[in-house]
């Protein structure tokens, strides 16, 4: 749009007015996502303890598993940060390398989550077994679905980065993906704390 200055310096993803609006819009979207997850957390908290005939969470949750998943996601958030850092240095190769590492870590996380769900189902805790387990599976599952979507999105972006190199558009898209990925980590921190840790304690 005319009337709004285009920058010639600074990070690529902020050069045009449109870019700056996109990043802001995504932040506002993340605000909405917080409200969304808060509602799921609220449901989880209210339904806590309503396990009916299914096993109680203390019987199923295991610290090593939860910690492994947390470290995978934490590290992926870190590598994603490095990827954006590489992008800002102008290194397409660095960006792609770190992005792929991030993806691999994310896939690892997903693998563990799927394993976890299958394991719980074997123990008799499924989406259908009680109010508590419904809220558990939907809460963690929504996070898992977000991670899956993030991975697909990243794959699309990697293709575009390969095809078009680093330019204003691809840089902005990558930056926004980075925000999304870090945000998933923020949500996981709360999941880890209020679902797994509290579930093991109470």
């Amino acid at each position, binding site marked *: 749009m005319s009337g709004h200055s285009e920058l010639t310096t600074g990070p690529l993803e902020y050069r045009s007015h449109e870019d700056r609006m996109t990043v802001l819009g995504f932040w506002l979207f993340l605000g909405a996502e917080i409200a969304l997850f808060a509602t799921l957390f609220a449901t989880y908290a209210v339904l806590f303890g309503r396990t009916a005939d299914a096993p109680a969470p203390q019987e199923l949750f295991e610290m090593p598993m939860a910690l492994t998943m947390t470290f995978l996601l934490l590290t992926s958030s870190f590598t994603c940060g490095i990827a954006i850092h590489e992008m800002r240095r102008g290194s397409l190769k660095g960006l792609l390398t770190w992005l792929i590492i991030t993806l691999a870590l994310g896939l690892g996380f997903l693998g563990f989550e799927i394993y976890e769900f299958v394991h719980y189902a074997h123990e008799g805790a499924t989406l259908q*077994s009680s109010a508590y387990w419904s809220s558990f599976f939907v809460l963690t599952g929504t996070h898992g679905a977000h991670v899956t979507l993030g991975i697909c999105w990243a794959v699309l972006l990697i293709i575009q980065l390969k095809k078009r190199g680093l330019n204003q558009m691809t840089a902005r898209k990558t930056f926004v993906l980075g925000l999304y990925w870090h945000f998933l980590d923020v949500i996981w921190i709360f999941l880890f704390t209020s679902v797994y840790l509290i579930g093991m304690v109470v």
Partner: protein
Amino acid sequence: MDFLLNEFLVTGDPLIYGAMVSIVLVSIAIVFVLTYFRKWGYLWREWLTTVDHKKIGIMYIIAAIAMLFRGGVDAMLMRAQLTLPNTEFLNSQHYNEIFTTHGTIMIIFMAMPFLIGLMNFVVPLQIGARDVAFPFLNAVSFWSFAFGAMLFNLSFVIGGSPDAGWTNYAPLAGPNLNPGPNINYYLLGLQISGIGTLATGINFMVTILKMRAPGMKLMRMPIFTWSSLITSFIITFAFPILTVALALMTIDRIFGSQFFTLTGEGMPMMWANLFWLWGHPEVYIVILPAFGIFSEVISTFARKQLFGYKAMVWSMLIIAGLSFLVWVHHFFTMGAGAGVNSVFSVTTMLISVPTGVKIFNWLGTMYKGKIRFDTPMLWSIGFIPCFVLGGVTGVMLAMAAADYQYHNTYFLVAHFHNVLIAGTVFGCFAGLTFWYPKMFGHKMNEKLGKISFWFFVIGFNVCFLPMYFLGFMGMPRRTYSIEPEWMPLNVISTIGAVLMAVGFLVFVYNIYYSFRYSEREKTGDTWDGRALEWATTTPVPFYNFATVPEITGPEAFWKMKQEGGTTYDKENLEPIHMPSDSGVPFIMSAFMFVAGFGLVWEWMFMAIAGLIGILACMVVRSFDYDHGFHVSVEEIKETEEKAREGEK
């Protein structure tokens, strides 16, 4: 065949057969007309693929008026049943379906889209922008609303309408007590249109925060833009809650989870809690933009600056903040204890303070003014006493101990109609008549407008005032049969409803009449306006402003008129960048419809196919590097010269 007749199509009711026949006939007529006049291409190019905020706004409003008609017919059927309770006009099941669709359609598919339509058309013009921040997303918003509404309305003839009230309380609406596709329509229809609403919220926040004309500080924005900003803010934080609530119940019904069920230690009351956590902010989503409209209209027709602009802005901000802190007043009678009820009583009553400030500021705006009584102003003046009545009864309802007697009665019904009709519907009518010339290039006929106003406003009071008394007499809402002593007041109420219907029909006729006979607008400034939307020509060129003026104070256009500014500065024309049209939003929303329909009937192959379609559209969008196009200086010159001929 058996499935088709007994489950898929709704059978056994003459009203519904009539509806089916008319749906088929109207569809055939539309297809025929489009084909005969070779308008398919035009429809696709100019409307279905458009990303122009003005066209999207107009489509929103047209859809909303259609929905107002549908919801209104529902209302008339209900009134007819309550006036003739012994003639079995409607049976209980049919009545339940009708009040459910009436409420849902009026709130979700009428009030909100109407206001969002006005926001779409007006806000970018008021802030001197060429479009919204994300035009593509805006088209997605509209089409997902349109397809969501279509899915919801389909339930009438295919599968059966939802019948658990617009609040859809569990466990009544859950899988245990209400199996079948009907409630699924509610859940999916709202879900699909909710996605669009959320996108609108984000879109308008960014638009208003980042695309204002140079010099237009926040405190120089027109008040309607302010109300839109605050509304968008509420939308962004409230709609995710609805998304989750709907999703949880959908999972309950389709995939057998136990959130709100009677089995598996599920907790039905959590639905009410989540519903109102969204539902109360929703009330302010549909009232704040109306407040904005009234402020604009009153200031324009009193020919005065808005009284207490800052207080107006702050009161809206406070209302927005409080709107998230009062939801429990919708279920005081749930027995959550004296502590909970006391806190939410007080927070609810507090909302009346900023609202009162607004009322007095509108009165202050008229003080020392020169009031003209054009139709938009009439709606705004009619709004004040009617809305105050709704407001004070709202305070009465907020007093939890007394609410135990009002809850679920016609007192409550009267209250929220008093607020929502006097606030939102009057606001929509005021806004539409006010901005109509800008949208279509001619005014709506004043005489018909006034006739429609008087019918509507008198009918409105005749219809809803008796309901307060019915509440005191013990008449519960949502009942299809009445006791003999409630009869006289119900008859009065129905007379009022008929008057309102006449008012609405005159309003619609006025659209046709004005299209045929009204004088075409020569200037862009129909009402001696004050904000920037009146600074451009009528009809508005697709790029809105040839040059965006520098803003030096509030009421930008009022000032420009005095100081001689223009939006067509010949010396400083630059090529204008505009976004390209796209068919993707329409197709993507159509896939949402397919997925939604699949889920309603639990046909998973169809749901998955729809989902894949949606994802494919997102991939297509991701690879789309279309940067839009530039309008050349010559084209701008040509357009502007042509549009401004009449002015000289």
